[in-house]
C-alpha cells in the first residue's frame, strides 16, 4: 500500500514526446539553419536549447513527484511539480480498463494503463503512464477481483494491494481470469487481405511516395534528372504499364503490411463479465469493458464493406473507451458478416436478436424527394457568385438524391419485445440495437409535410460518453405511436435514494 512511482524510464518517454511534438521546429533550428548567423536564428537556437534542457529537468521532476497508491477502496494518483494535484477514483467507479503500449514503450519494456470512469472531465480517468507490463496485468486482475468482491460481498478475502513485484513471495493468483476467458475471434490471413481492400490502406503509399519524391527532388537538386525521366516515360506505353503494375504491386504489399500491423494480431475474448479486445503489433492496445456497461450495439457498413460482405460491430458503452479515432470500442472492424452474428451471440447474447425488419413505405420516398436539397442549393449559389462550372452543383444535387434513394432502400426498423433495431444511413449504414430500459429519452418529430404523408422522425438517446443519439427519418406514424407506447411501458427496477 506504499506510494509507488512510475518506472524511471518514463523520463525517457517524456523527453521523447517533447522531441516528437517539436520535431519540425527543432529540425529547422538545429539542422537547416544551424550555420545561419542571423540574430533571429541565434536567439531561436538559445531559446530552443533552454527548452530542451528544461524538458529534461521537467521530465525528471515529473517522475520524482508523480506517485500512485492503491488503497482499500480507491486508487490515488498525485502529480504536479509546482501545483500539486491529487486524484482519487473509487474502484467500483472504474468502468473500463485500457492498456496501450506504444512502440517506444515496447522497446523500453513498459506499458500505459488507463483506468476510466463513466464521468466526464479531467478527473474522469487515471493514467499510469509508464509501468511494467507485469505490474499492469497484476493491477488489472486485482481490480477485477476487487470489483467482484465489492459487488458480491466478501468471499475473496485474500486480495491485498501488496504491489511489490516480489516474484518469489507473491503466491500464484487464484483469481486468474485468463483461465475462464474464451477466445472468440482472431483474424485469418484471408481476413487481413479483405481488410486491406476494405480500408483502402494501399492508397496510403501514394501520398508518402509523392512527398518523398518531391523532397528528394528539392534536396538533391534533381529537377534535370526528373525531367529526363518524364521524357523517357512519355510516349512509351510499355514502360508506363510496367511502372504502373509495379507501383500497384508495391502499394498492395505495403497496404497488406500496414493492415497486418494495425489489425493483424487482433484478439476478441470474453468471460462472464467482461469483453477483452487486443490489437496491434508495434504499438499494442488492449481494452477491458464490462458487459453490463454495454448500452447498445452498432453495426456499421461502409459502401466498400458492403461489397466485400464485411461489417464493423461497435459497442456503445457507458464509459469512454480510448480515443475515438482509434475506434477502440470496435470489435474487429472488418468482420465477415457471416461471422458477426455468431460472434455477437457468443459475447453479448442479450443483443443478438434477428427479427424480421420493416421497410419504409413508398410515401417516405416521396417525402425524401420533396425535401429541399439545401446543401446542393448552397453549392449552386456559391457557384453562381464565383462563376465556376455548374457541374459541381449538378454533382452535389446528384449525390444528394442518390443518397436519399439509398437511405430509402436501406432503412429498416423493428421493435421486438424488449429490443429495438434501427438501421439507417445511405452510403454507410448503421444498424443500432438496444433495449428498452437502456434508452434514456426519446423524441418524435414531424413537419407539416411529414404529417401529410403520415410520417415521423424518431430520435432516441442512450447513455454513453457523453450520450449516443440515434435518429431515424420518415417512419410511419403508426410505428412512432407504437414506439411511444412501447417506451411508456418500460419497466425498471428502482431504488429510493
Amino acid at each position, binding site marked *: 500500500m506504499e506510494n509507488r512511482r512510475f518506472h524511471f524510464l518514463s523520463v525517457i518517454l517524456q523527453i521523447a514526446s517533447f522531441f516528437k511534438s517539436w520535431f519540425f521546429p527543432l529540425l529547422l533550428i538545429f539542422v537547416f539553419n544551424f550555420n545561419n548567423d542571423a540574430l533571429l536564428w541565434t536567439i531561436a537556437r538559445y531559446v530552443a536549447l533552454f527548452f530542451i534542457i528544461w524538458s529534461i529537468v521537467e521530465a525528471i521532476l515529473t517522475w520524482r513527484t508523480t506517485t500512485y497508491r492503491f488503497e482499500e477502496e480507491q486508487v490515488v494518483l498525485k502529480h504536479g511539480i509546482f501545483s500539486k494535484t491529487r486524484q482519487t477514483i473509487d474502484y467500483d467507479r472504474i468502468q473500463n480498463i485500457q492498456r496501450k503500449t506504444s512502440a517506444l514503450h515496447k522497446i523500453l519494456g513498459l506499458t500505459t494503463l488507463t483506468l476510466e470512469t463513466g464521468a466526464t472531465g479531467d478527473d474522469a480517468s487515471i493514467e499510469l503512464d509508464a509501468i511494467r507490463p507485469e505490474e499492469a496485468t497484476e493491477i488489472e486482475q486485482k481490480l477485477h477481483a476487487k470489483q467482484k468482491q465489492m459487488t458480491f460481498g466478501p468471499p475473496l478475502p485474500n486480495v491485498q494491494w501488496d504491489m511489490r513485484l516480489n516474484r518469489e513471495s507473491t503466491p500464484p493468483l487464484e483469481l486468474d481470469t485468463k483461465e475462464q476467458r474464451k477466445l472468440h475471434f482472431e483474424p485469418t490471413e484471408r481476413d487481413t487481405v479483405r481488410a486491406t481492400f476494405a480500408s483502402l490502406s494501399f492508397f496510403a503509399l501514394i501520398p508518402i511516395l509523392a512527398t518523398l519524391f518531391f523532397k528528394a527532388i528539392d534536396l538533391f537538386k534533381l529537377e534535370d534528372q526528373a525531367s529526363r525521366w518524364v521524357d523517357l516515360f512519355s510516349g512509351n506505353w510499355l514502360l508506363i504499364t510496367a511502372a504502373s503494375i509495379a507501383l500497384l504491386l508495391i502499394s498492395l504489399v505495403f497496404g497488406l503490411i500496414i493492415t497486418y500491423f494495425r489489425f493483424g494480431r487482433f484478439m476478441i475474448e470474453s468471460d462472464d463479465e467482461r469483453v477483452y479486445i487486443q490489437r496491434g503489433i508495434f504499438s499494442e492496445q488492449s481494452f477491458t469493458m464490462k458487459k*453490463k456497461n454495454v448500452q447498445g450495439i452498432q453495426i456499421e457498413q461502409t459502401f466498400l464493406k458492403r461489397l466485400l460482405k464485411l461489417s464493423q460491430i461497435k459497442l456503445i458503452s457507458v464509459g469512454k473507451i480510448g480515443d475515438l479515432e482509434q475506434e477502440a470500442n470496435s470489435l474487429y472492424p472488418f468482420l465477415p458478416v457471416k461471422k458477426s452474428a455468431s460472434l455477437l451471440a457468443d459475447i453479448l447474447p442479450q443483443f443478438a436478436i434477428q427479427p424480421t425488419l420493416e421497410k419504409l413505405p413508398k410515401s417516405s420516398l416521396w417525402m425524401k424527394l420533396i425535401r429541399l436539397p439545401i446543401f446542393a442549393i448552397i453549392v449552386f449559389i456559391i457557384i453562381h457568385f464565383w462563376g465556376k462550372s455548374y457541374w459541381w452543383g449538378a454533382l452535389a444535387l446528384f449525390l444528394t438524391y442518390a443518397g436519399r434513394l439509398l437511405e430509402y432502400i436501406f432503412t429498416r426498423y423493428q421493435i421486438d419485445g424488449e429490443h429495438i433495431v434501427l438501421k439507417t444511413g445511405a452510403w454507410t449504414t448503421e444498424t443500432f440495437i438496444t433495449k428498452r*430500459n437502456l434508452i*434514456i*429519452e*426519446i*423524441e*418524435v*418529430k*414531424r*413537419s*407539416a409535410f411529414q*404529417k401529410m404523408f403520415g410520417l415521423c422522425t424518431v430520435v432516441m*438517446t442512450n*447513455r454513453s460518453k*457523453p*450520450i449516443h*443519439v440515434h435518429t431515424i427519418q420518415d417512419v410511419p*406514424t*403508426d410505428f*412512432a*405511436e407504437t414506439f*411511444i407506447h412501447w*417506451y*411508456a411501458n*418500460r419497466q*425498471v*427496477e*428502482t*431504488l*429510493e*435514494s
Partner: protein
Amino acid sequence: MENIYAHLTGKLSPSYTKVLKVNAMIEFIIELVVVGILLGVSYYFHWFNWINIVLYVVGALIILDNLWDFFFQSKFTVNNWAYEVDEQYIQLKRGRLFEHYEMIPMTKVQFVATNQGPILRKYGLYTLRIGTMGSEHSIPGLPEDEALRLREEIAHYAKVKEVEV
C-alpha cells in the same frame, strides 16, 4: 390517429403570448440597429455593393420574421405547447408546422429549476428547466403556482433512481 398527443393536458399560460410579443419587439429593435449600423459603416467605407444588397435583404427578412413572430407565432407557440408530468415520465410537445415531442423518464432527471427573467417577472411567469444526462429541456411561460408545484413534484419523483443493470 390525427392527433397522437391528445393525452397531454398541461398548457402554457395565455399571458405568455404577451411575453413573446415583447420579446419579438425587443429582438426587432436590436436586430434593426445592428443591420443599420452595418449599413452605415458599409456606406461610409464604401464596401462592396453586394454587401449592401445582402444587408437590405437581411433587413427585410428581419422585418417579416418579427411581424410573423409578433402577430402569429406568439399565439401559435402558446396554443401548440402541451406537457404532462406523471410519476414516471415527463412529456413535452411543441409546434404545429414542426411538431416536436419528447418523453423523459423521471428516473433520468438530474435537476429541475425555475427561471424568471425581467419580462417573465412582469407577467408573473416562470420557465421550468429540466436537466437530464445528455440535454436540457424547458417548459416556458408557466404561471407561478403551477411552475413551483411542478418543480416540487418533479424533484420528488426524480429522487427515485433506477438500478443500473
